């Protein structure tokens, strides 16, 4: 007793271009080349054009903020998916980066273009150092402890009234020009995106994934997993600190709100929407979520409801995220066949 609907099914066929071997491209034709390059170039060109087509001064700024979030989201995705450390402390990296760059700029007089890289590296080192004791923790325990770090820092600054207390640090220099400000973060997002994607495909990245899969076997292979985890945390926290440092110079102000939960939670939501484990997914997720949450600003607190609904819909209907969905559509034909 088959109904009409049961008599046909969707068939998926690979587009059949499998030219990627380990680190080598064996390209057969221009079509295949285009097939490989198209998605990357659309992303790069799209990101570079985006500020030009945005009206006014407000929307380009939103793009900058989205890029800041994108850096944090990539850092989350890298740690969670490739190292198995689910960090809820994105705000910690952002806060440390932004305070460091602010202090380097206002107290030592370093120009932003020097303060930002220094804050990135020093902040990464500092975050790694204080996270070192948590590295043996797993799963939920690591998540909870990292969630505490930014909250702790915010209360510490408030209670001790250090580095500007509740007022924050004002009078931070902005980037030398609006162009540098706009494109600096965009280029950084692209560099970190392609850099991280390359990294996870090296042997080093393979060891990190092995640590996530099965840390006992990595220990039995004569490798110090704490060292590998620490290196990965350094990479991730430096990425987050870079985001924070740029933020300080874009707003020309920093304060304890950089340690706020938003910087921990929104990147995770963006990763869910974009597709975890893809590194591109989180970037796309931020480019969608940040503008949407700006649009919903008029609704006041009600936007949290919209926001939750979007997230809920993604978790229920598209739990592998937009990227996985898009990739499937791109790599495979689909058609209905009778059975």
């Amino acid at each position, binding site marked *: 007793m088959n109904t009409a609907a049961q008599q046909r099914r969707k068939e998926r066929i690979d587009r059949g271009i499998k030219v990627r071997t*380990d*680190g*080598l491209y064996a390209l057969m034709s221009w079509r295949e080349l285009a097939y490989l390059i198209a998605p990357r170039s659309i992303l790069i060109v799209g990101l570079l054009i985006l500020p030009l087509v945005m009206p006014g001064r407000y929307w380009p700024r939103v793009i900058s903020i989205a890029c800041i979030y994108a850096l944090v989201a990539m850092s989350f995705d890298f740690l969670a998916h490739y190292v198995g450390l689910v960090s809820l402390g994105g705000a910690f990296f952002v806060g440390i980066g932004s305070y460091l760059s602010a202090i380097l700029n206002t107290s030592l007089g370093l120009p932003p273009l020097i303060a930002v890289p220094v804050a990135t590296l020093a902040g990464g080192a500092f975050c790694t150092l204080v996270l070192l004791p948590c590295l043996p923790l797993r799963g939920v325990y690591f998540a909870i402890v990292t969630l505490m770090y930014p909250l702790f820092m915010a209360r510490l600054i408030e209670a001790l009234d250090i580095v500007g207390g509740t007022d924050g640090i004002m009078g931070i220099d902005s980037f030398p020009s609006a162009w540098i400000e706009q494109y600096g973060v965009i280029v950084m997002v692209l560099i970190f995106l392609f850099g991280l994607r390359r990294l996870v495909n090296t*042997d*080093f990245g*393979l*060891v990190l*994934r*092995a640590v996530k*899969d*099965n840390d*006992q*076997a*990595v*220990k*039995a*292979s*004569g*490798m*110090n*997993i704490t060292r590998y985890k620490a290196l990965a945390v350094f990479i991730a926290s430096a990425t987050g600190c870079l985001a924070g440092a740029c933020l300080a110079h874009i707003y020309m102000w920093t304060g304890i709100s950089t340690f706020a939960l938003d910087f921990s939670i929104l990147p995770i939501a963006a990763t869910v929407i974009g597709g975890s484990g893809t590194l591109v997914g989180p970037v796309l997720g931020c480019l969608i979520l940040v503008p949407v949450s700006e649009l919903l600003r008029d609704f006041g607190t009600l936007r949290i409801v919209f926001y939750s609904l979007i997230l809920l819909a993604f978790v229920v209907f598209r739990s592998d995220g937009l990227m996985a969905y898009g990739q499937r559509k791109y790599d495979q034909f689909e058609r209905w066949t009778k059975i």
Partner: protein
Amino acid sequence: MTGEPILQIKEVTKTFGGIIALNRVSFEVNRGEILGIIGPNGSGKTTIVNCITGFIKATSGHVYFHGKEITGKPPHKIADLGVTRTFQIMRPYYSLPAYKNLVIPLCSPRARRTGGWRGGGRLGDRNTVSIDIMEEIGFERDSYVPYKTTSTLPTGYLKRLELARCLALKPEMIICDEVFSGLSMSEIASMVPLIERLQMDGITLIMIEHRLRELFQVSNRIMVLNFGEKLVEGSAEEVMADPRVKEAYFGSEDIEEVMSHA
């Protein structure tokens, strides 16, 4: 054939809360030999492996490798010295292709130091080396098997992969925790020559087994554990003749099988 002791275990005790898993166990392993360890379930065999390789800390007692104390060192340091192990519950990287499992040990400081393998050049020398090792351990080079996702491989291959992980480190010693269990008779038969070849290559082995017949075939010496204590130690015949061993194994299939063939 066998030389001076290279691994010495002295009075090792391990308690888990109230359970005494190991009670003052002492023994030595000589260079180049195969020492078999047998004992009923729960007699502390895996626990002694964990104590030697640093995966758990002994409550008291000492372990010496080449006369130097290695008690309480972290697992990666002990593996770095050349004392490697397999896991009773296999621990491959399920999500990776099978051959990539070996790229990880090949990245370790020991594998890089002991040379032999030509480092990890840009075009993926480590991949080539890992395929070489897999061939050595019984994967067919030209089949698809080494390239399959590990989670799809049958037990026999996973056991071999455990051994291959040890081999990638160019070990001095391999401690095999039940590499024969879960395998069919024919699979075991194909593993035995492999073990013998490892010994000929100068690797010292400790083999923990429930498959007594195959174990007696390859091992030079047998030690029996029961309730965390060492019962006896000696040649296979000596051990099996001991009434205490018969008592410990009373009613168990392992011994009946061996006795029926003896």
